[in-house]
Every structure is written in structure tokens, then in C-alpha cells.
């Protein structure tokens, strides 16, 4: 049986005409890292809010560890650890006090909680700062503590909502490595991100979500097959406002499968970069645009996203 089973899950806010999550279905198996990849506002956070019982679905069902999110919310809550995107910590409390408080809210207590607090502090390399107030921590330290809180009680499913947003590379690496360690321990992880390289590095399977809809689902290899052997050309222009014109002009060329532009950068899906590049340079010259850099990338999730939506992941 799947640890998480989501069927036709839909959420429509009263304040909006469109659905934030639209008929989404997927499963997460035990011991699996499942990533929801999509741009900001795609519906990732709304999906995990419903899975963690914070929001009531408008339609569809979801079960976590055998518990229905609407009918058995307490069972679901005992089965999950959530690491929210915001730093949901009390700045005036110390790291240890935060862990104790959130541990008690999870129903932990006594010597078991004390042991777990020490373990988590050690794991997150925060033992030396255990008694310092969180308000004195760096952004990365806060992120690590935020993660530690989500892991209290060793739940079978850990939900991480963009845990690496706005942190230093060292802390980011720390968190990614720790997630791999969790995976090695057999913990299931639901990971949301808009960084395609994180999803690609961590995930057993990836769901690509855009405008509330799950548009692709599978392992990286399965998703890569969607775009075949396409390569990606990244062009940076000197003229920031020329990207859109160039992308539109290039979209008529046969050798270019997809094109998009953002802030003077043009991303192109091409069958063979060495074939397409002369045409691209000629078209840029024709439009009076000068190219600053050209980068050729192997097929990746960004290529997949571009292929599926016609837009770059960060659009």
C-alpha cells in the first residue's frame, strides 16, 4: 500500500476564480523521495497544506499512512513531520527550547524527548548554540533548526516545503545531504522545490506541477524521455529587452522545438545545438541584438518543463 495516496485532489479558494490545485493524483511509496517541482504559485504549497490537514480539499481525497486527511486528521498529523517554507520558530526561545516546545506539541516528553533533542541538535550541528536564542542565529542555522523541528518524533513521512530557499550554499548542501541520509534510513520524503537541480539530485520520482495541474510524473529517466535527446541553449543578451523579440523570431525555425525569454536570457530546446546555433546567431544579428554568452546544456528537468509548458521554470 502507498504511504500517500492522492486522488483527484482539488482546491479552490473563495477569493480566486481559478483552482489553486486542479484534479491532482499521485502516490508516494514507503522509503521514497517524491518531489513536486514547479514555479512559484504552481500549487505545491497548497497541495502539501491539504496533505498536512491545514487546508480542507474542495474535492478529491488524500490518505496518509492509511489515514484520511479529512476524516482522520489526528492520525495524519501523527504520521507526518512538516518543514514549512517559512521559519516557523520562536525567535525569543533558544534552539533547545524550540525543540522541546515543538516536541511536546508532537506528544513527546520525558527522557525520550530529551534524548531526541540532543540527537537533532547534534545532527544539525547546533549543539554548541543549543542555549542561544534563535534570533541570534544566521539564516542557515535557522533553516537547519526548522528542519530539525520537522523531524521530531521520527515520523514515517517528512514533508519539506522549499527548505533551501534563501540560504547560503553551505547550509543548502547540509540540508540536501541530510535528506539523502533520511532516505537511506528508509524515511519517505515529500519535497517541493522550484530548483530543478535539487529535484533531479534527490528524487526517486518527480511530479511536475504547473498552474495547479500535475503535468508530468515519473522518475527522472522517464521524464527525460518526454524530450528525447533535446539539448538546451541558454543565450544571454546585452539588450535585456531584446529577449522576447529573439525568442519569438526563433520560434519559427524548424531546428528549435521550444523557446522562451526572461530578463534578457533566451532558453531554447533544440535537437542539436551545433546545428541550431548558426541560425540563432544570424537571427540575433538580423534583429540588431548582440549575444553576451552562449551555454549548451544536456537535457534536464528545465528542458522537460519547457517542453511541457512552453515556459522556463522560473517564469
Amino acid at each position: 500500500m502507498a504511504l500517500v495516496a492522492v486522488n483527484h485532489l482539488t482546491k479552490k479558494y473563495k477569493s480566486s476564480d481559478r483552482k489553486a490545485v486542479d484534479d491532482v493524483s499521485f502516490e508516494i511509496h514507503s522509503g521514497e523521495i517524491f518531489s513536486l517541482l514547479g514555479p512559484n504559485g504552481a500549487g505545491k504549497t497548497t497541495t502539501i497544506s491539504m496533505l498536512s490537514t491545514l487546508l480542507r480539499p474542495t474535492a478529491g481525497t488524500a490518505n496518509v499512512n492509511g489515514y484520511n486527511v479529512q476524516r482522520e486528521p489526528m492520525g495524519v498529523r501523527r504520521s507526518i513531520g512538516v518543514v514549512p517554507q517559512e521559519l516557523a520558530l520562536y525567535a525569543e526561545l533558544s534552539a533547545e527550547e524550540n525543540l522541546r516546545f515543538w516536541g511536546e506539541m508532537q506528544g513527546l516528553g520525558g527522557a525520550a524527548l530529551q534524548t531526541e533533542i540532543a540527537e537533532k541538535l547534534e545532527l544539525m550541528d547546533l549543539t554548541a548554540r543549543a542555549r542561544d536564542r534563535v534570533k541570534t542565529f544566521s539564516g542557515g542555522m535557522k533553516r537547519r533548526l526548522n528542519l530539525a523541528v520537522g523531524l521530531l518524533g521520527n515520523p514515517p513521512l517528512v514533508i519539506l516545503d522549499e527548505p533551501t530557499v534563501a540560504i547560503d550554499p553551505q547550509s543548502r548542501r547540509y540540508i540536501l545531504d541530510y535528506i539523502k541520509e533520511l532516505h537511506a534510513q528508509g524515511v519517505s520524503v515529500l519535497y517541493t522545490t522550484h530548483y530543478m537541480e535539487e529535484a533531479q539530485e534527490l528524487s526517486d520520482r518527480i511530479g511536475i506541477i504547473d498552474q495547479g495541474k500535475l503535468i508530468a510524473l515519473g522518475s527522472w529517466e522517464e521524464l527525460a524521455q518526454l524530450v528525447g535527446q533535446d539539448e538546451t541553449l541558454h543565450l544571454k543578451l546585452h539588450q535585456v529587452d531584446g529577449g522576447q523579440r529573439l525568442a519569438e523570431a526563433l520560434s519559427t525555425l524548424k531546428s528549435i522545438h521550444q523557446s522562451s525569454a526572461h530578463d534578457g536570457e533566451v532558453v531554447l530546446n533544440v535537437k542539436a545545438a551545433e546545428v541550431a546555433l548558426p541560425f540563432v546567431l544570424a537571427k540575433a544579428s538580423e534583429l540588431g541584438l548582440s549575444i553576451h554568452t552562449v551555454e549548451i546544456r544536456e537535457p534536464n528537468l528545465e528542458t522537460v518543463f519547457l517542453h511541457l509548458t512552453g515556459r522556463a521554470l522560473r517564469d
Partner: protein
Amino acid sequence: MRKLITLALKEVRLTFRDVGALVTMLVTPLGLTLAMAAAFGMGGSNTFADVPVLLLNQDEGKFSNFLSAVFESAEVSALLAVETVSDEAAARARVDAAEVAALVIVPSDFSQRTLPFLAATESELGLDLTTLSQTEVEALPPETTQRLAQLYQQSLASERDPVSIEIYGSPEWPISTTVLKGIVAQAVERLNITIQSTTQLLSRLFIQGGGESQSLAAAAGGGLTTNVGTTELPVRLNIISPSGRPFNWLDYISASMAVFFLMFTVTSGGRTLLAERVAGTLPRLLISPTPALTILWGKMAGTALTGMLQMCLLWGATTLIGAYWGTPSGVLVAIMMLVLSATGVGALISAWAKTSGQAGALGTAVTLTAAALSGSFFPRVGMPAWLRSVSLILPNAWGIEIFSALQSGQGLVDILPLLGGVLLLTLVYYAAALPGFRRQFEG
């Protein structure tokens, strides 16, 4: 229950680690208490004593003697140090220099215009009715009695403007001037009543005639100048408690400031629910295996506990500087009930406010209005009855009523009806808050 206690203790810890909150909760009320007590009087003695006042009595008659008698009475002489003067310009200069609190000026025609009949009998017949005994009045010859009746009827027919006593007060002695004004106003009111009753008696004597009425006239006339001054004033200025402890500002302001700032604490405590939603800690709490109601009650309990600690600390600190709040058992129960009620106000605001900022603005508005309406800055006894009644929709007013009762020597049993009122009010607050919270948690 364990989670509820954990939540409550977390609230207390967060509040007591916030320097800004500590300044609002403890430092400011203590500072204001000390400042106001220093301005209006501290300790167990009367707040006002030996206020320097000048009396310029220019009256050519005797009726103004009532004022001297008032000033010399035991009750007033403890408050005012009255100096009789004769030079108006010099006296006004002393007031202008704030050397004295005020100057009381009785005009020269005061007696003449107060009861012209008595003045006329003295000037025409050489009779001073105010000094004659009952027997002497009865012994007057018939022609004199007849003339007295004529003079009396003439005095009724003549029109006269009200006579004024001027109080020239120094702006630098505002409270003392107000007190003096109150004393003189009460004395004048008493004089007016006496004049009216005297007029009625004289009317019966000289218009209706009769030997029995003559004695009444003598009694009324003879007692006029002394009755007003020596009779106890209908409203006492100084509030003396049954415990024998006189009213003092330190007692009053200690409790009223504590209640005032308790409202600040609980309204900002309620606001933390909205702030936690923004900070992300409330959603994290809501996805922990903790029922929403436990979270809500835990936060409320934390706010109430913070309020309790605040009130107890202020009680202790003000007691150390000489304030008296009442019997400890009464004070403790009163604090508990008031904190619960005030927390209800905080809950009501945070339940219906949409944002933390909105809750903050509402909380400040409610707290300041409640303080002004409830007598946080001045004794409630001086407020109009309707305002005293209206203000009872707020915990501040109940708090001040309760602590005033305790400070006047009443015990826990005596304040039970007041505590019942607070309980009722508290239930209303929470009942009104509940739908708002339901809306928030379900949204």
C-alpha cells in the same frame, strides 16, 4: 492538558523575554503610579492639607459670616489654610504669583442682596432679626410687626440679581482650586436652601400672621448666619473608608493603573494569535497532533497567566511604596476574575480582527477609552451616574469598583456581588469571541 500548559508557559516566557512588553506591563504603570501619586499625594495622610487660600470679605452685612464659619469648621480647616486679607490688588498679585492657590472674594453688597428684607429692618427699624431671640421677637410692639410685614412684602416685590462670590484661582494649583470651588459651592448651596426656607417662614409670619409663626421667624432669622457654617456639609469632600483609612491617591492610582495596563497586556496577548499566523508558527501548531481548541485555550491561558503575574508584581511593588489594595484574599480573587475578564476583551478583539495591525489599533482604542470612561485617572465617585453605569461594560470599571471596595476595608464576601458582575461580563465576552475564532480556524 499538558499541551495546554506547555502552550501557556510558552506565552508567558515569550512575553517576559520581550523588553518592550516588560516596559509596557510593569515599568510604565509603576512610573505613572509614582508620578500621579507624587502629584496628588502619597502615604496615608489626607491628600490635601493646608492649601493656602485668601479670603477677602467686603460684605457690609453679616450673612457672609457663613463662609468664615465653613472655613473654620474642623472638616475644612484641615484642608485649607485660610488667611483673611483686605487689599484686593495685593491678594490677586499673590494668586498670580502662585504663592497661594486661590482668592475668595465676597462683594460688599452680599448681605444686602442676599436677603434685602433683613437688611432693611436693620437700617430702618434698627432691628437685627438675626440676633433676636424668640422671646424678643414675640415682645415686639404691633406697629413694629406691622412695619416688618410691609418691608417684607416690599422686598418680595423688588427685583434683584443673584449675588456672586468670586474664586480667583491660580492655574498652577488646579486641583486645589477645584477642591476650594467644591467647598464654597456646597456652602453656597446650603445657604440658598436656608434662605429659601427662611423666606417661606417669614412669608407665613408676615402675610398670614399668628403668634406661633413669630417664633418660627425668630428661630429662622436668629439661626441664619450660624446654621450654614456650622451644620455639617451635605457632601463630604474627603472620602473616609470604613476601615478608617482615608482615601489617598496612591492606593487609588496603584490599582487603577494596574488595571489600565492589564488591558494593554491582554489585548496585545490576544493579538499574538494573529501574529503567529503571519509568522507561520500557528500553521505549524495546527498541523501538530494538537486540537485547535487546545491551541486556542493554551494561548488564552498564557495571556491570562501573564496578566496575573503582571497584576501580582504591580500589587507587590506598589505595596512596597505604601499603597494598600485590600485584604490579600480579596485582592487575589479580584485579580483572578479581572484578568479572566480582561483576557475576554483581548479574545474578542483578536477573534474578530482580520490582521495583527487591526487588532493592535482596536486594542489600543478600547484600552484608552476604557481607561477614560472607567475612572483610571480620577475617582469614579466624581463621575455622572449614567457614565458610571455605562462604563460597567468594561472590566476597568469593575476593577476600580472592586479595588475601591477592598481598599475601603471591605472583604472578599462583601465584593462577591461585584465579582458576580465581572463573571457575567466575562461570559459575554467569550461567547461573543467564539464565532470569530471558529471563522479564523476554519478559514
